[in-house]
């Protein structure tokens, strides 16, 4: 019996071995390598100097800009994505519109990266369609007014383009979980639509909203390609700093690269943790 047991156990594990080896070699070890690298110096001795160096103004500013950018685009994406999701699910619009919105969101949430930057330049660049139309029809020159694509708000506007669709995709199932009975019960008790949203629907949806906000934040924080294509790595956000560091050691300190990457993992890890815990909480109400 013990012998059969012994033979049985390894055989069952063989089935998942390829996956585990793959995951360890190409996902866990590389990440672990970066994390440990952040805590050692050139000679391999333990140190916290790299992490302390993250607080150099140059690095700190990049992280601050990244966090502000991700937060702004996540909040805007959250608000408008939620509004659109509510409008197409509960707004009394033709049902076909909802299907269209979902499909369109599926496409545009994947239409990020470099092509998005091109579309953006063709729209709000110096000869972009909106820039030209505003100038010719209304006499408004947005560049004379100080608009700049390679700026905080310029980049935020571009990021919102993939944040809204992601929000629509994630929050719509949660909105579908709002039971009709809750609304009816509220109405029977004399609640106005505003009261229903404020006292019933939003409290129920709150964990989902907060969780998705965290997810959108992480999504924007890790994004590099759009920013690089748009700014030519001029704008100093954390992922671009890391990108330049990997390419050419611009910080003159390879271990600061590890620390940068570690910092990014911490930020995205924390926001994903928030997402997961909020999701668990929202599942109490919405199944």
């Amino acid at each position, binding site marked *: 019996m013990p012998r059969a047991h012994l033979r049985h156990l390894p055989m069952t594990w063989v*089935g*998942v071995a390829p996956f585990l080896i793959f995951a360890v070699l190409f996902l866990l070890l*590389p990440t672990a390598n*970066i994390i440990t690298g952040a805590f050692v110096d050139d000679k391999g001795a333990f140190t916290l100097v790299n992490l302390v160096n993250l607080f150099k103004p140059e690095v700190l500013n990049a992280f601050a800009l990244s966090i502000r950018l991700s937060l702004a685009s996540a909040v805007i994406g959250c608000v408008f994505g939620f509004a659109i999701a509510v409008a197409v699910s509960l707004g009394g619009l033709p049902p076909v519109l909802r299907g269209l919105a979902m499909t369109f969101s599926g496409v545009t949430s994947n239409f990020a990266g470099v092509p998005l930057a*091109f579309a953006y330049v063709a729209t709000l660049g110096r000869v972009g*369609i909106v820039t030209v139309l505003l100038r010719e029809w209304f006499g408004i020159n947005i560049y004379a007014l100080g608009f700049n694509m390679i700026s905080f708000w310029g980049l935020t506007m571009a990021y919102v383009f993939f944040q809204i669709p992601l929000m629509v995709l994630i929050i719509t199932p949660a909105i579908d979980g709002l039971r009709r009975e809750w609304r009816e019960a509220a109405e029977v008790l004399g609640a106005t639509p505003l009261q229903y949203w404020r006292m019933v629907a939003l409290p129920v949806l709150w964990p989902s909203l907060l969780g998705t906000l965290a997810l959108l934040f992480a999504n924007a924080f*890790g994004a590099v390609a759009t920013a690089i294509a748009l700014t030519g790595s001029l704008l100093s956000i954390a992922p671009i700093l890391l990108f330049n560091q990997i390419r050419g050691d611009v910080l003159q300190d390879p271990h600061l690269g590890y620390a940068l990457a570690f910092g990014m*993992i911490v930020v995205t890890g924390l926001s994903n943790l928030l997402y997961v815990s909020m999701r668990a909480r929202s599942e109490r109400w919405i199944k």
Partner: protein
Amino acid sequence: MRRFWSWSIVGLGVVYFFLPLVGMLEFSLKMRRGAYSLDAYASVLADARFRATFGYSAVMAALTIVLGVLIVVPTVFWVRLKLPKLRPVIEFITLLPLVIPPIVIVFGYIRLFNTSSWLPLTGSTLGSDILLMIGYSVLSLPYMYRAVDTGLAAIDVRTLTEAAQSLGAGWATVLARVILPNVLVAVLSGAFLTFAIVIGEYVFAALLDRPAFGPYLVWAGGNKAYEPAALAVMTFALTWACMALIQLATRFSRHTRMQPK
């Protein structure tokens, strides 16, 4: 009143999302002075680098899909059949690529598999290509895993496996001729999503220094005027095509599942 607000919000959304799309379309047609033309597209298609990089990325995407299927399908099958306790662990691992930024993963590759390491993949062209393919499989892992897991949830894995085994089939036969055909639609939807992600990917390709479509796009963005818009239109159309194929595949699967047993 409610409908008015709903329409306004949807209208606002339509304007915000269609302006850039219209913008890039219009811009891509303006290469010839004074008239709309397809010159920018002709210029793109005539560019040998476009064909080379696009071909490279398409092949890469196909290989990524094959590798992803080979890794994900047997694992999901086996975990469902023999190791259900391991499921949360596997699920957690497959979600990690969404948590760890891709640029950090590729940074890890460069440090771990450099020329002086025990597995010097970045030292040769073939090695870098393999590493890129593996990296893309990691990026697509969350999508592939979820697609296949949903597909397998819809069929009775245990009964099918036992039936096949009692007819004398080995594990390979069970996987290739019983399980895979049953989850083919799910695999396809994962595959199209993978394709959409991989085809224009920039960070992995740029940092591993591979001649892929993403770095070409960035190069074109810096050196050409109208071609980038044309490239964006083409990529957008390609993303649409991938999503349409996913919809088609899911509709097809619903259809087959509805049939009486």
